[in-house]
């Protein structure tokens, strides 16, 4: 079959004009416009560019939601099987628009989409995780080289075939870790790598170390006596029976449990769901992980105003950082609504 492809480009590549025409609203043109010629030639009879959507870079940047909405509508009206955007080369607003359009197409129309740009285009950092971006030169002189990988990757996506490695296929790494089988077992690779490292020969690590981001410290708690303190834990303390089925490892959810009136976490009512440490001690007395008993005591003594009625818990065992970050954001919203002043987060 011949796939129906819609091409997205800006006002400049559509021949409408330069910066003075950047306010161009989205419009649909039948068939091929501008750089679509080269793409169509590369597709051969496997895919046809049925229409081209054009939008001014300035208009898109200033009206992102509205423009996206209109563009998605135009693409949907073409009964497209896939969308190809750009190449945007090193044009920042164009690259951002291409990335945003491809992401919206994937999310809302559930069809393949890809774009192409220069690695330093700001659109790369914004959208590389969401969409495939083929690497190009920094100017339109690189069009001829960009077209073959754009066409071949889009066809692979349309046919549901698996993509090879970024360097082989010509796209920018999305930052996702993907499993593969190498030629040699890990121990052999380690020994060879060590020999190279000792000889000062070049070698390639299989896992480049991540750089963790930093958050500035929040201001200190000013008034302890009047403070509402909340407890959060990654130690997996849950009501016995784990009512929300939080996974022992790689948790996909967190629990929110009411401890109003509870002055001690007893082994009759609480246990740990964590699969990464010996549960004997936490199961015997969950206060060893989540110190409710002493906090309740201090609350009674008036050292602080209130222990928050709800505690939040998950299992920090092989749980992806991205997942934990999502839990953190969601929990923070709930803590704000509950007028909590400070948080004690315990980990095992």
């Amino acid at each position, binding site marked *: 079959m011949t796939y129906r492809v819609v091409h997205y480009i800006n006002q400049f590549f559509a021949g409408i004009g330069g910066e003075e025409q950047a306010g161009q609203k989205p419009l649909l043109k039948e068939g091929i416009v501008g750089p679509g010629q080269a793409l169509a030639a590369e597709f051969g009879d496997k895919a046809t560019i049925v229409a081209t959507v054009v939008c001014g870079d300035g208009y898109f940047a200033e009206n992102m939601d509205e423009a996206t909405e209109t563009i998605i509508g135009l693409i949907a009206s073409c009964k497209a099987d896939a969308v190809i955007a750009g190449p945007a080369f090193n044009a920042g607003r164009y690259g951002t628009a291409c990335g945003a359009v491809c992401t919206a197409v994937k999310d809302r129309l559930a069809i393949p989409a890809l774009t192409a740009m220069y690695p330093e285009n700001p659109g790369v950092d914004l959208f590389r995780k969401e969409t495939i971006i083929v690497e190009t030169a920094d100017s339109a002189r690189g069009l001829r080289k960009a077209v073959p990988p754009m066409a071949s990757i889009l066809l692979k996506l349309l046919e549901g075939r698996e993509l090879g490695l970024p360097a082989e296929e010509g796209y920018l790494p999305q930052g996702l870790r993907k499993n593969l089988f190498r030629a040699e077992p890990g121990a052999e690779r380690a020994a060879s790598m060590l020999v190279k490292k000792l000889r000062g020969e070049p070698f390639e690590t299989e896992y480049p170390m991540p750089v963790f981001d930093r958050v500035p*410290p929040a201001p200190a708690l000013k008034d302890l006596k009047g403070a509402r303190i909340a407890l959060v834990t990654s130690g997996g303390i849950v009501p016995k029976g784990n009512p929300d089925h939080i996974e022992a490892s790689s948790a996909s959810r967190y629990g929110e449990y009411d401890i109003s009136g509870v002055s001690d976490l007893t082994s009759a009512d609480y246990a740990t769901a964590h699969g990464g440490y010996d549960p004997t001690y936490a199961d015997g007395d969950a206060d060893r992980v989540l110190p409710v008993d002493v906090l309740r005591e*201090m609350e009674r003594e008036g050292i602080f105003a209130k222990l928050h009625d709800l505690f939040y818990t998950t299992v920090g065992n092989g749980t992806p950082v991205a997942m934990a970050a999502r839990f953190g954001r969601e929990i923070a*919203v709930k*803590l704000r609504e509950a007028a909590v002043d400070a948080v004690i987060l315990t980990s*095992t």
Partner: protein
Amino acid sequence: MVKEIERAGFPVVHMCTIIPISQTVGANRIVPTIAIPHPFGDPTKSPEEEKALRRALVEKGLKALQTEITEQTVFND
């Protein structure tokens, strides 16, 4: 989790045993605890001693929350 809660503006004290991980991940107020399977307890001690130990740790945590800091700080005592 600790960073996202702090990013939302709450002072957070991270009470955990393996300080290097907390430091790498980027918690700001860190209070060391006893051991991974029992951060706030010591099963070799009597329940009363254990609770006293736990109270001392929590007090340390509250003190950390009340301390202004400009960079990552481990509250050792």
